């Protein structure tokens, strides 16, 4: 197995305004992100040789690549759709990396898009399991809060204290999102707001859960040796890791519910390719899958940002804030920027890309001299994790 390090680069990206986009359909969202990416890379639709796209909850069965083909009028090229729950956007991106690295194509579009707000319901729905009978009432918050209950139990944390601990993640992400024009939410919140908010799935309350948003994000991928033909500041891919676990955690014999093999394996594969030994020290920014506050906490530990069982100390010290040692979810994360499922992996990469270029919209949210950034999504029951690591220089 070879490393992906410095073989491909991102030379253009686009991201729509996230939120309740009553005004925009699936095609409109894809057009917004793709045309921003074209412009950013200085190319047009004729330059795209292949497209890897992802969407999860498209209203029809067999959506294929129709959104891109019809919306963007891309024709005569392969348009390949994937669906991998919340990791869908990352999988599209990684497929594009591999298509370019293989030498098959030189300019590839990766695009993630999701239209959640046409269903008439605020959540992702009930009965999202793998089986129509024995998982009939599974919801996302109900599933992920199983992690929080067990984490508090295992580390003997009083549940109310535990809720405060993870609540601080929500306060941080809302602050970060408030500085981000394209984020779904812009409100800053206090820990008191978090604790007083309605319970969605105990122990998780409203502010522990990410927004359900519409949105799209897109990236133009090319060969590393061609990257500077497009722009002076391309962002190089340093490595990636994807891990799927067999047997969903709910039924997995012996599963701990406080750590996920998929998170550990995917991050380690990516670190290995990128040559990262100590992620806590070597990464300058991380965009991780904070679908729920507790998810962000277990990621700190499974990714090696914090010692096991001690993420709470890093939360308390502000290590993951914009000014901290390793800013996590500098754009507000899924929590505040929003989570249009299939678009999220590319949106997170958009933040890493802009930060590594020094092009955050506002100076107060620009991280100082970042070199290495990580983006990550974690999806399913949860079962699949995808990580990508980027740098602004070769080597």
């Amino acid at each position, binding site marked *: 197995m070879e490393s992906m390090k410095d073989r491909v680069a991102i030379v253009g990206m686009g991201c729509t305004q996230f939120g309740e986009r009553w005004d925009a359909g699936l095609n409109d969202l894809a057009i917004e992100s793709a045309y921003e990416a074209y412009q950013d890379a200085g190319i047009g639709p004729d330059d795209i040789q292949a497209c890897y796209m992802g969407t999860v909850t498209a209203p029809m069965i067999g959506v294929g690549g129709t959104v891109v083909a019809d919306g963007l009028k891309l024709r005569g090229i392969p348009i390949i759709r994937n669906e991998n729950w919340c990791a869908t956007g990352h999988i599209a991106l990684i497929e594009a990396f591999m298509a370019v690295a293989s030498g098959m194509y030189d300019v590839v579009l990766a695009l993630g898009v999701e239209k959640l707000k046409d269903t008439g319901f605020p959540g992702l729905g009930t009965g999202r399991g793998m089986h129509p009978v*024995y998982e009939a009432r599974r919801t996302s918050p109900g599933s992920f809060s199983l992690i929080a209950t067990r984490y508090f139990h295992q580390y003997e944390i009083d549940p109310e204290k535990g809720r405060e601990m993870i609540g601080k993640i929500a306060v941080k992400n809302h602050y970060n999102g408030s500085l981000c024009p394209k984020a779904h939410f812009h409100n800053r919140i206090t820990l008191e707001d978090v604790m007083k908010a309605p319970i969605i799935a105990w122990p998780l309350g409203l502010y522990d859960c990410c927004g359900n948003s519409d949105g799209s994000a897109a990236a133009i991928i090319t060969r590393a040796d061609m990257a500077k033909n497009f722009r002076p500041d391309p962002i190089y891919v340093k490595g990636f890791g994807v891990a799927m676990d067999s047997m969903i955690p709910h039924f997995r014999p012996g599963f701990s519910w406080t750590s996920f093999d998929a998170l550990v394996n995917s991050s380690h594969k990516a670190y290995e390719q990128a040559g990262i030994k100590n992620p806590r020290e070597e990464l300058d920014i991380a965009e991780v899958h904070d679908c729920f506050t507790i998810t962000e906490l277990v990621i700190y530990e499974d990714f090696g940002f914090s010692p096991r069982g001690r993420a709470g100390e890093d939360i308390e010290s502000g290590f993951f804030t914009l000014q901290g040692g390793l800013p996590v979810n500098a754009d507000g994360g899924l929590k505040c920027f929003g989570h249009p499922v299939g678009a999220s992996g590319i949106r997170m990469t958009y933040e890493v890309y802009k930060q590594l270029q020094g092009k955050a919209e506002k100076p107060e949210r620009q991280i100082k001299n970042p070199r290495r950034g990580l983006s990550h999504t974690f999806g399913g029951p949860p079962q699949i994790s995808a990580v990508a690591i980027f740098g602004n220089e070769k080597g």
Partner: protein
Amino acid sequence: MVGITAYGAYIPAFRLSRDLMAKAWGRASIGGERSIANNDEDSATMAVEAVFDCLQGDSRSDLGGLFFASTTAPYREKEISSLIATTVDLPAEILTADFANGLRAGAAALRSGLDAVASGSAKNLLVAAADCRLAYPQSESEQAFGDGAAALAIGSSKVIATLEGHYSISNEMMDVWRKEDDTFVQSWENRWALGEGYSALMQRALSGLMKKKGLDPKGVTRAAFPAPDVRTHRRLAQVLGFDPKSQVVDPLLGQVGDCGAAHPFMLLVSALESAKAGDTILLGAYGNGAEAFLFQVTEEISKLKSRRGIQGWLQSKLSLPTYEKYLSYRGILKTQPGEPFRLLPSATAYWRDVGTILRFHGSKCRSCGTLAFPIQRVCYTCRTKDSFDEVRLSDKKGKVFTFSLDNLAGRSDDPVIVQSVVESEVDQARVYCLMTDFQPKEVRVGMPVEFTFRRIYEGAGFQNYFWKCRPVR
């Protein structure tokens, strides 16, 4: 000798104070409380509980049949006995039959079961009865009815109560009925219905059997017979010459209510719970006629494994806080529909996965011993393919490994859903399921739970049944 070899019962956890029911309508209360099936229970699920209570983990291999009796079967066309037999993990080569349409359906199933064993068409079989009848809101019957089930095992060896005699009368009258499309029980004027119907026929059947067997009232140790109300019950006992204190089995009207076709079974179970060798038990059943059975208790009764029975389930209860909840649990009031389910059930998938869905089997790898649920063809641990033994988890206990109190997925009358990951006492198999019959504040990691067969939801035009966990009752 043919007779009863084991018994089991089931009373739902929820009880509703009749004073609360009366208060809702500004009418008189008949006092006490009644049992209420939860919104995920029906006659099929209650019968399953009673059969598990009856079996107590005993081998299924020599059981030759299962009969089910109810006036409230969840399907008009679709056998319930086959559903129950599969769920309690009986083999396929058995007799199944449903008995319906009258309050005497339970007695008919019992008689047929005894006849089947006597004639040799089955060596042993199970008879289960369950009912959850609906009376008009505000009516006295609404207070008087209860929901419950019981099951009896019938055989000719290790008999705890032998059948000594039987007497049956058929009688056509319109005293109590439900037409094909009626939701609520209808009845004619009580004085006539109780006088010329219930009292007259029960007296004829019970005294007819005693006369046939040459018994006087003193020769009967316990007399168990249902009645629509306490006064009518007391009067019949008096007419028959039984001492209400020492001889008559409590009709369970005060704490449970009239459980329809299941009620004679429940009273027989109640009588057997306190019986000793040599006792004679006279059992009555009413419904378009009347029927009487005489049993004699044997020494075998002392060897019977302990079980919950009527007394056990009676003590374990939760109060239903409002009358309105009863109305919506029973579907009399509509609940606001939640988010639609994304996955539609499929009759073929349900059929294919019956080992998991109904029998609640996990797979234990023959190579490494990992027990996984649902059944896995490829072992999760060692990836050995198609080499496993099926293990039944339904009648085993477990502990809550982790849980959440989900406010999104519930019904409008029951907004909190407990999603739970249960670690089974058998090889720590993990089962993800919903919790039922719980109080949200009591749910915690490590809580002992047991599995219970429930309705999950209706989709694609049929009922989806599956297992939930509940705090050990």
